[in-house]
């Protein structure tokens, strides 16, 4: 637990979202403290991705409040793009820019959004490409890299912006099994540096070893949340028990 003087990194209260008549999120409350690592899991369609995409407003919510880094975000927030610079996101399908090299992918936002000079941006980019252990690929294009390498570049790209919170939306779901480990290792590394992370994933070992808290969602609601050990050994909600028995 963190001291009460530090505001939570992410503070979600009473969140609701509808797609037409289908309710994707029902009454979601979630507080994530600074430096905390939260894993969100659940069956598909439970609203996990929708929830984290609301945090940086790639999806907009219909009711309830979200506060990130102390600032309220919703569809009417002006200059949302500036707030997004402090929130990093890693996508299931990487979404690297195919027409830019690995290095350019990382420096683009630094140069345009943070108005950095090229040399300084490149230095930062090289630092993070080192961190994700592929500095030698800096001149290659995304199409020339394997899936695992692309996702690591995507992580580096997000880290370059020095975000206060990192969001991961099923980062390994689109990867071939032999490449999942390299990405999880990088994520573990990021966690060990103290980054606040919210991670939607099916990788339960990762949850067990890295997360402070596991949040289980079903049908748009948070149904159970506890520390990993409790969650995996003694889940209390029947849906959680059912889910775990199916995937473990």
């Amino acid at each position, binding site marked *: 637990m963190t001291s009460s003087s530090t505001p939570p990194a992410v503070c979600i209260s009473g969140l609701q979202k509808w797609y037409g008549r289908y309710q994707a999120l029902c009454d979601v409350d979630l507080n994530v403290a600074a430096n905390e690592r939260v894993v969100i899991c659940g069956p598909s369609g439970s609203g996990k991705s929708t929830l984290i995409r609301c945090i940086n407003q790639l999806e907009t919510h219909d009711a309830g409040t979200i506060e990130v880094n102390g600032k309220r975000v919703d569809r009417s927030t002006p200059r949302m793009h500036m707030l997004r*610079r402090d*929130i990093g996101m890693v996508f299931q399908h990487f979404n690297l*820019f195919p*027409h830019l090299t690995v290095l350019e992918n990382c420096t683009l*936002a630094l140069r345009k*959004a943070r108005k950095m000079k090229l040399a300084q941006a490149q230095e930062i980019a090289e630092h993070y490409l080192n961190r994700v252990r592929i500095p030698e690929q800096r001149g290659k294009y995304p199409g020339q890299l394997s899936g695992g390498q692309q996702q690591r570049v*995507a992580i580096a790209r997000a880290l370059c*912006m020095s975000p206060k919170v990192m969001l991961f939306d099923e980062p390994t779901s689109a990867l071939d099994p032999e490449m999942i480990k390299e990405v999880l290792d990088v994520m573990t590394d990021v966690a060990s540096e103290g980054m606040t992370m919210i991670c939607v994933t099916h990788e339960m070992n990762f949850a067990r070893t890295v997360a402070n808290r596991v949040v289980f969602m079903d049908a748009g609601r948070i149904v159970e949340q506890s520390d990993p050990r409790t969650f995996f050994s003694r889940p209390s909600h029947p849906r959680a028990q059912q889910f775990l028995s199916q995937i473990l």
Partner: protein
Amino acid sequence: MESFDILAGIFEGFKVTALVTLYGMMWAVPFALITGVLQHFTRGAARVAVTCVIEFWRSSPVLILLFVLYYALPGFGIRLSGMTVGAMALGLNIGGYGSQAVRAALQSLDRGQVEAGRALGLHRLHILWLIELPQVLSAMMPTFVNQFIQLVKGTAIVSLITLTDMTFRAKQIADAQYNPIGVYTSLMIAYLIVCYPATLFGRYLENRVRIEHRGSREI
């Protein structure tokens, strides 16, 4: 008149053909890019307005546009040279088609690209300029080459408003010496000489674009 002389006579009109093509491209390319992007991004009344402008220039037959501009504008007090009228009518007509290609290319771009740009905190215009347009433009080169070819072919109609292009010259020669076979065959050859290489180039570009893009969606 020997066929070579006929061809040479026809090519005297090449300067006008080239100028109309050039001025036409100067209308067509900006019009296609601006209206295509606008149509992709705007909603509601603004989008309707842009669509109306595009459709007016695209859905009217180009010959009609040419004649309307040439004959009707003076009635409203606007006097433009034949070259300007020709370039405008052809350019905006072809640009109208081009705008649809621009819009389609923007729409077909993977949404994830835009999301990644937004997640990084880039401003929407930056995303358009740095991420969407570069990817779309390289895919659109074959379309622009095609527009160029359409323009060159389109210039033939300016012969009907007395601009002395290749077609006009051919008709002059044909009326003078009554050898339609020789003259019109030479005219076809003249356009072939100009357009056929461009057609081949366009096909080469199409194949290159296809090969380039094959690598980049590897997951």
